[in-house]
Structure formats: structure tokens, C-alpha cells
């Protein structure tokens, strides 16, 4: 009983310790700017998560959370299936662009238009996301490095398209035409753009969880990622699992770009690929590459980002990059604590066995001495 409590404390304690250590470093950075870390923390919390009737900050967080969650889910599907692609950034960018094009060029009734746009976003995201999977399977290319190259290429392609063929009107920064009113996703709170996009993200979150842990396809995919040898032995096709991972992951990240355009931006500006996909990847890793974990961390991440921009940068004058710095530090520290935890557990196990062995052998030696 006591051992079990100690073990749970250890298992939960080290990751929490890693997160706290990252927060302490963040606090130190903030206090180096002459701002009290406590003030900074409360500012982030209120600017990111508070909600009062006049202006609901939480709404802004949830609105920003939607694209991040979609990208995080895309990353989860990829990482869990043995496809280490981190190309969510590019899929997000091109998905958003596809939604903007369909939203402004095509015309359709109110209910159908957003669905068409999202379909285009998912299709383009899937097409871009399946590239690393195909290259990996049929040409043996490492997907991690190629997906970074593909991210840069998508960013360049977006900047070119937005500046030349799809440019709306003469302006200093290139952007596409605004999407038609019929294509906009319904918004519950106009001031923060909190709306249907977030609901879709939550549905996607549950959908990915269900797919990965409750369906045969999802099971095959997880097994080809987690237990490669077993999957092969059981006759599951790694090829189709990895292809599915590329398609589904890409479609999810593409949808992220789609909801961002249809729900908040209403057009694509040069530099649309601003790190949302990377943020999603970070959330997926910190969320333990599970669908629900990635969703929750995605919302937290959005809150910290909103808090860092609206709270720290605007109110206290601390650059907003502090938020992403602390979160990246969390990845580093959480990665470092994982094997430490294993080591400590192994050492405790050894000590316990020794103690038991000592307890078992000592009486017999004493008896032997008595007999002698």
C-alpha cells in the first residue's frame, strides 16, 4: 500500500517537477526584466483564462485553441503510427489556403459552403501529409527531415501564391480575397471569434480517440507504431497503416488551417504559416501523444499564448515569446525526466529485493551459527 502510494507520487511527481522547473526558469527570465514573476503568472492566468461579461478572455483562448488542437491531433495520429512526421506546419498552411480559395471563389448555400471549404482544406492537408509517408515507404526517405523541408516549401509556396496569383488587391502585404459570408463558420462570441471551430475541434478530439483506441484500423495503426514486430507478425500491413497515418494526420492539420481561416481570419495573409503547426506538435508531445491529452494541452497552450500576448506583452511589456520559450523548455525537461524516473524505479526495486533477501536469509544463518 505504502509502496503503491510512493510509486504514484514518483510517477506523477517527476513530470510535475519538470513542468515546475520550466515555470521557475520562465519566472527568472521575467524577473530579469524587472517584472515580478507572481504578477506575470496572474496576468497570464487572467488574460488567458478569465471570463467576465464584458470581454471573455477564455473565448479567445478557445478560439485560438481550435487550430492548435487540430494540428496536435494530426501530430498524435502521425506519431502513434510509427510515422515521425512533423509536417503539421505545412499541412496547416496549405489547408488554410485551400479553404480561403474555395471560400472566396466558389459559391454555395450557407450550410454547405463551410463544409465544402473544410473538405478542400482536409483534402489538401492530406495530400501534403501523405507525401512524407509515400517517400518513406517507397523510397526509404527519413520522414522527420523531409517533413521539415516540406514545411519550408509549403511556407514558400503559400507566400508566392498569396503574393502573385491569388493576391487580392494592391497592398503592402500580400493577402487573398476575403471569403464569402456564406463560408464563414458561425461565431458564438463576435469579440473573441469563439465559435463552431472549437466545437469541431472537440469533436475531432473525441473522434481521434475513438478511432485510435476503439476501431480495428486504429488498433492496427497503433500497433504498427508501438509494437512493430508484433504488428508484422500478426499480418498487419505497415504500409497501409503508415499511408493512413499520413492521410489522416495531414487532413487533421489541414482542417486546423481551414477552421482558422473560416472561423477567425477570413483570408490568408503572407506569413500565415506562423508556427501554429509546430505549436500543435509541441502540445501533442507534452500531452503524451494521446488524443485527449493533446486536446487538453492544446487548450492550455492556447491560453498561455493568449495570456502572453494580451497580458504579458501588452500590459507588462514582456515579449510574448516567453510563453513558447517556457513550453519548449517543458518538452526538454519532460524528455529528460522520463529515463530518470525509470532509473529511480529500478534502483528502488533492487533495494526492495535486497531487503527481502536479507530478511529471508538472516534467520537461517543465525540458526546455522547456533548449530555450529
Amino acid at each position, binding site marked *: 500500500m505504502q509502496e503503491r502510494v510512493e510509486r504514484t507520487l514518483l510517477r506523477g511527481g517527476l513530470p510535475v517537477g519538470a513542468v515546475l522547473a520550466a515555470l521557475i526558469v520562465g519566472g527568472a527570465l521575467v524577473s530579469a526584466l524587472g517584472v515580478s514573476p507572481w504578477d506575470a503568472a496572474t496576468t497570464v492566468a487572467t488574460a488567458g483564462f478569465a471570463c467576465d461579461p464584458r470581454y471573455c478572455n477564455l473565448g479567445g483562448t478557445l478560439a485560438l485553441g481550435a487550430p492548435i488542437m487540430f494540428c496536435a491531433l494530426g501530430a498524435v495520429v502521425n506519431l502513434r503510427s510509427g510515422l515521425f512526421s512533423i509536417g503539421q506546419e505545412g499541412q496547416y498552411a496549405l489547408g488554410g489556403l485551400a479553404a480561403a480559395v474555395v471560400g472566396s471563389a466558389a459559391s454555395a448555400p450557407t450550410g454547405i459552403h463551410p463544409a465544402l471549404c473544410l473538405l478542400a482544406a482536409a483534402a489538401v492537408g492530406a495530400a501534403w501529409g501523405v507525401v512524407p509517408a509515400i517517400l518513406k515507404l517507397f523510397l526509404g526517405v527519413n520522414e522527420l527531415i523531409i517533413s521539415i523541408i516540406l514545411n519550408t516549401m509549403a511556407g514558400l509556396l503559400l507566400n508566392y501564391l498569396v503574393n502573385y496569383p491569388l493576391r487580392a488587391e494592391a497592398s503592402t502585404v500580400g493577402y487573398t480575397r476575403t471569403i464569402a459570408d456564406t463560408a464563414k463558420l458561425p461565431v458564438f462570441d463576435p469579440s473573441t471569434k469563439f465559435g463552431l471551430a472549437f466545437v469541431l475541434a472537440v469533436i475531432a478530439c473525441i473522434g481521434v480517440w475513438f478511432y485510435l483506441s476503439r476501431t480495428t484500423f486504429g488498433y492496427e495503426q497503433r500497433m504498427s507504431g508501438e509494437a512493430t514486430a508484433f504488428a508484422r507478425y500478426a499480418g498487419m500491413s505497415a504500409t497501409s497503416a503508415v499511408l493512413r497515418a499520413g492521410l489522416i494526420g495531414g487532413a487533421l492539420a489541414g482542417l486546423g488551417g481551414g477552421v482558422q481561416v473560416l472561423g477567425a481570419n477570413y483570408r490568408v495573409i503572407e506569413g500565415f504559416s506562423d508556427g501554429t503547426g509546430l505549436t500543435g506538435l509541441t502540445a501533442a508531445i507534452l500531452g503524451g501523444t494521446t488524443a485527449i491529452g493533446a486536446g487538453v494541452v492544446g487548450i492550455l497552450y492556447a491560453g498561455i499564448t493568449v495570456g502572453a500576448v494580451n497580458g504579458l506583452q501588452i500590459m507588462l511589456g514582456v515579449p510574448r*515569446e516567453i510563453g513558447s520559450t517556457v513550453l519548449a523548455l517543458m518538452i526538454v525537461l519532460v524528455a529528460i525526466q522520463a529515463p530518470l524516473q525509470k532509473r529511480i524505479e529500478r534502483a528502488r526495486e533492487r533495494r526492495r529485493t535486497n531487503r527481502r533477501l536479507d530478511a529471508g536469509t538472516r534467520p537461517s544463518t543465525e540458526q546455522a551459527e547456533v548449530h555450529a
Partner: protein
Amino acid sequence: MNVVADFLNSGIRMTTPILFAAIASLISARAGILNLAIESKVLLGSFTGILVAAWTGSPLAGVLAASLSGALIGAIMALAHRFEVDLVVLAIGLNILVLQLTVFLMRSFLGGVGTYKPDVSTLTPITVPLLGDLPFVGHLLNRWNVLVYAAFLLVGLLALWFRTRAGRHLLAVGEAPGAAASSGLPVARTQVLALIVAGAIAGLGGSFLSVGDLGMFTRNMSADRGWIGITAALLALNRPGLLIPAAGVFGLASAASIRLQQFDVPASLTQFLPQGAAFVALVLVGLRARSRGRFLQLWRSSSRIPLSRRRAPVPVDEAVSTTEVEPASAATTRTGPP
């Protein structure tokens, strides 16, 4: 004629940071470690380099500091490797951390939003006494500083060093750590040193960008050069002899992309050249089964994330037939007795 010389000149200048990154990747790979954090080392190197150069007024001090900062990340990775930390996840975290931290520090302490341009002189170009006066060579050698020569010299030194006793030991550690350990080589110490040296070299590449060339720091200054360096090392099959041509491809592609912008081709299109070269290079590396196998081996020694593969080491037919035979034989034994 001078146009060609100028083109080669800028191509070789653009090769320099990529070459430094490629050397760093090569040393880590040959020591048996997959080093994906080179991007962060290059970026931190260029940040620290310009900062220290502005602070001390000496560009050389900046270069030294850049190399130390790269070595620091290398040391962190080495320490993490000894504790069996997943180096792939750690590297992703480090890359994002350095990208965000440098922007944060620049905005909060150096007053710049997107760039930091202190009043500091860059490394002085080396003037070669006699060759510099020749028509073609003069244009070719123009604006090269000590780091350009250092990068190319380092490749030669590395090739020589791999033929010495200590170099062979490093190769042995990377090739077969178990065998190396059983013959008394200090595997862990060799890998730690290799990672630290690789970090220092990647940091030098970063300092070339800021102190060596432009005299300023911009957000995400490394701009994928670390990743392209890793690609170049892969393309060179991790052999020093092929490293200069492999890195040169990307350097010349970058130079060509800048050249093309003079003809009113948009920058977002011309920049496809180096990225496209990297794409093709990765496909070529993947097509070569042996280098793919080497890379997978590196991945497995540095990360616990399994990568699913299509081709099974055990022929699939055999695996299927054994699973089918077992129940069949069990059925016969069960029906046998009565």
C-alpha cells in the same frame, strides 16, 4: 568571366555555414549518435556570436563564444544520452527552445523586434597577397574571412584524423559500440567528446552567419541551415571526402537563388532551389539501401520511438506459414488420441 567568379565566390560563402553544420552532423553520426539539434546549435551560435562581439568589440571573441555556446548544447545532449534520454524528442524541444529564447532575449534586452544590429565590425576578409591581384582568382577570393578557410580546412583535417589511432577509435565506437567497449575503448567518453566537438563546430557555423557575414542577428537566422547540413552529411554518405561537394550543392543552390532574384523572380520561388536540392538529396539517400540502414541504426541507438518499416527482416511468407501451421498441428494432436 568575373560573373562566374563572383557566383562561385558567393556560393562558397553560402556553403560555409552548411559545411560547418554538415561536419557537426558527420562527427556525431560517425560516433553513433543521431544529432538532430544542429539547427539549435547554429542559431544559438549566431546569437551568442554577435552578442559577445558587440560586448567585447572583438569579432574573434564572438566566434569563440559562439563555438562555446554550441558546445554547451552538445554537452547537454551528451549528458542526456548518458541518461538514455530520447534524443529525437530532446532535439525537437531544443530546436524550438533556442528559436523562441533568442527572439525573447533579443526583444527584451537588445531592443530589436525582428533584428539586432549592433555597431560592430564583422570578421575582416583575408587578403591573399599575390593571388588576389589575378583577374579571375581575385574575384573568387574576395570577401572570404577566416571562417570560410577554416570550414574547408576542417574537412581535410577530419579526413586525416579519421586515419589516426584516435580517429579510428571514434569510428569503432560508432560502428560497433559493444565490440569497442569489450576491447577496452571508452565508448561513453568518446561519444560525449564527439557531441561536444560537434556542437562547437555547429556554433562556428552560426557565428559565420552573424559575426562573419552580416554583422547582425535576425529572428530564425539559421533558416534550416542545420537541417540542410544534416542532409548534406547524409548525401556525402558520412564520408569526409564527399562532404565538400555535397555541401557545395546546397551552397551553390542558395547563391543561385539570390542571383535569380536580380532577374525579378520572386524570392519565395527562388528559395525553392536549396530546399528542392535538399528534397532530391534525401530521396537519393533513401534509395541507397545501405545508407538507409545506417540511418535507421542511428535512430534506434538514439531514440526509443519506433519507426514502422515496410520491409520485414523476417520474410513475411515464413512468418505467416508458421502461424498457420501451429493451430493445424494442434488440431491433429487433439484429434489423434480417440
